[in-house]
């Protein structure tokens, strides 16, 4: 009965939705009438990340782009950085995003209207548009269409701190542009209207205040900035070191930025280092968002000076470890604050943030059966010991709920590119360790656990036939035996004779990144979760040298750091898995400049 009803329904829908060819062709012909679109090509990455680039870049771009165009009231040639309709002011604004403002390179003007019906005032030549004759607030984006937009100064509006700018055409010809009007107070539900070839002659736009302080951002386009300031008790050092040690990381807040560190100078009693926050720009260029130089005194680690970064999950905070001597907590945008490095973690090779960003885990100094857990903000250190830890464990991860540590047997690193690959070749001991009690639970085949927070690719066939991540209502399983991968029950194909070498989840658990290799080259593969993304599939985003190693993955899975080992020096690449772009950081360069 039910099946018959379903069949009836399907038949009826098919009939109700039947369309004739003429109708389809009529609609297809409407494509010819679509307004011209002009998209900023290589800088498309900035579109999604516009929220991300935040005040620093916005400020600089406003300073450099908006100022020449916008006149101080009454003086058309003087810059007025306090007021702007320049698109960059709206980067990150959801209304601007919905209208397709993107990076702003194709946006002529963007401005809000107190009510949609004001369009008659702002765009007097637009013609009547009844759908805009409503009192709801609205937002307008006018697209550039490649024509420069002449702007002349206008009188300020009294008492509101806003200005009206008159935009006059440079000739008597109408200036026609495509524009978007979003009507409604809620960006998500506001009505989107797009108009093509609108005459914007006589446009008046309400200006809003732009960030006034541009001085915080030191420079643009690649050259290293002088350190903005020194950290406590330190003196800036500028001479390049003969053996620069540079390490990079991507903050786990999903921002496409490099944190780079370089040891500038070391002697028996101190290490001078510089850390920089860099953001990739279009055309392979890089913006320095901020940079700090500092010196740490004390006995230098016998293994040499180094800088390590541990971006704190879900925050703008990075823990910097310098030369085994000390640590700094760097809240982006503020000077790094020095911390006392706990004795328990004196020689810990690496540390691992809990997904909740509360504490870091690392093997305790000279205690193979102990993991030290450090809360750097509060300075507290505690230890978790278990006899089993002596048997297994060198690689530490966390479960996503931050309650348990995932510990894997130490892989043999000789000739092996990653712990994942090593785990494929062995039969290591692995298990869970309760971060409070130290109670251990060894893994068995078939075990499931939430893998996102700590798995970081260290899967092994002996760990479990299915290693799962529990997300919302469903369970996603990952199975890896070096030849096969499956995700959510869907087999994930690997290209040709390639074998998976490493896996990483994005922080949001929606994307799995895999590094595969076939002996000749490495391939970065991206799998969007088939139960979330429409038409899931493998996307090979980059072909890389055979020795490429998978590094950090940003929270949203778009940005990936990859390391390559060259006999002479270490290099890093920041990859955009959506646009296919990459930025290379050549650490052999003394200046540490990024090259496209």
């Amino acid at each position, binding site marked *: 009965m039910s099946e018959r*009803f379903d069949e009836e329904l399907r038949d009826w829908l098919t009939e109700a939705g039947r369309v004739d060819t003429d109708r389809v062709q009529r609609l*297809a012909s409407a494509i010819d009438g679509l307004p011209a679109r002009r998209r900023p090509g290589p800088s498309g990455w900035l579109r999604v990340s516009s929220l991300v680039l935040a005040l620093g870049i916005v400020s600089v771009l406003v300073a450099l782009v908006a100022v020449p165009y916008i006149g101080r009231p009454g003086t058309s040639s003087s810059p007025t950085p306090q007021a702007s309709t320049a698109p960059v002011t709206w980067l990150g604004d959801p209304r601007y995003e919905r209208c397709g403002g993107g990076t702003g390179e194709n946006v002529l003007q963007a401005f809000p209207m107190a009510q949609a019906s004001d369009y008659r005032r702002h765009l007097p030549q637009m013609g009547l548009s009844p759908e805009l004759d409503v009192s709801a607030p609205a937002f307008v984006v006018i697209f550039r269409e490649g024509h420069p937009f002449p702007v002349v100064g206008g009188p300020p509006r009294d008492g509101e701190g806003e200005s009206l700018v008159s935009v006059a055409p440079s000739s008597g010809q109408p200036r026609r542009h495509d524009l978007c009007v979003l009507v409604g107070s809620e960006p998500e539900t506001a009505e989107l209207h797009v108009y093509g070839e609108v005459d914007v002659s006589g446009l008046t736009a309400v200006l809003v205040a732009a960030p006034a302080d541009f001085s915080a951002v030191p420079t643009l386009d690649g050259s290293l900035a002088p350190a903005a300031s020194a950290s406590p008790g330190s003196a800036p050092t500028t001479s390049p070191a003969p053996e620069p040690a540079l390490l990079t990381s991507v903050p786990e807040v999903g921002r496409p930025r490099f944190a780079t560190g370089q040891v500038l100078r070391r002697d028996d009693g101190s290490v001078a280092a510089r850390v920089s926050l860099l953001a990739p720009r279009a055309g392979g260029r890089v913006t320095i968002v901020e940079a700090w130089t500092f010196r740490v005194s004390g006995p230098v680690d016998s293994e040499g000076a180094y800088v390590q970064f541990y971006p704190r999950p879900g925050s703008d905070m990075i823990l910097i470890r310098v030369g085994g001597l000390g640590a700094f907590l760097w809240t982006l945008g503020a000077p790094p604050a020095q911390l006392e490095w706990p004795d328990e973690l004196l020689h810990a090779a690496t540390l691992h943030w809990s997904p909740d960003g509360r504490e870091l885990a690392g093997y305790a100094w000279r205690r193979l059966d102990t993991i030290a857990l450090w809360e750097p903000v509060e300075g507290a250190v505690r230890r978790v010991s278990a006899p089993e830890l002596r048997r297994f464990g060198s690689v530490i991860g966390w479960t996503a709920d931050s309650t348990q540590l995932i510990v894997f047997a130490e892989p043999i690193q000789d000739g092996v590119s990653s712990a994942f690959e090593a785990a494929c070749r062995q039969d290591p001991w692995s298990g869970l360790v309760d971060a409070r009690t130290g109670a251990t639970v060894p893994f068995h085949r078939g075990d499931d656990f939430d893998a996102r927070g700590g798995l970081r690719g260290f899967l092994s066939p002996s760990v479990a036939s299915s290693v799962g991540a529990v997300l919302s209502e469903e369970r996603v399983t990952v199975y890896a035996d070096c030849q096969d991968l499956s995700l959510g029950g869907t087999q994930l194909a690997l290209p040709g004779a390639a074998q998976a070498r490493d896996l990483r989840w994005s922080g949001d658990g929606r994307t799995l990144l895999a590094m595969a290799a076939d002996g000749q080259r490495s391939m970065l593969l991206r799998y969007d979760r088939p139960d979330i993304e*429409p038409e899931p599939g493998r996307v090979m985003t980059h072909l890389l040298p055979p020795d490429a190693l998978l590094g950090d993955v940003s929270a949203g899975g778009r940005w990936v750091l990859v390391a390559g080992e060259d006999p002479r020096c270490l290099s890093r690449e920041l990859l955009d898995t959506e646009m296919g772009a990459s930025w290379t950081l050549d650490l052999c360069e003394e200046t540490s400049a990024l090259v496209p």
Partner: protein
Amino acid sequence: MREQAKSLQPSLVARAVAGDREAFRGLVEPHLPTALGAATALLRSPSEADDAVQDALLSAWLGLHQLRRADAFPAWFRRHVIRSAMKRLGQRPRVTELDLTAMAPVDDLERALERRALGRAFGRLETKDRLILTLHHFWSLPVAETAGLLGVPEGTVKSRAHQARARLRAAYAAEERG
């Protein structure tokens, strides 16, 4: 053939993003009949369906740079169509138009009446019920994609579809009684 069309998508998307209307046509044309059909079934008005799909074409064209993966274009375009149709549904008063498409030969009168009753019952449903039934029974979308479109878990899709079908049956029974 389908595989070939799929393999062409990345280059078509790249060209369309650069402003090539012909490439955009190549991308959307294969999907127009089903897009129109779904919009028509959903809106119960061919003219409104035409407008909805035209809006979807425009928004897809202007938003093409936001497409994350070329091979996801069909699903992405469906999303635009659904959004556009839903927007129109939300804007208009709930009316059930005369179902001229249900006119049938006299020798199949009983079946024609059944279809008409089903059409009227469908028109009485809430928007969300119509949508999920259209996605499932007309577009035959997998549960996973429907979940992605609606932004709800798969389990919710299944339960909503079940409830929508139950309400349609009830409405249909009422139509037949009345």
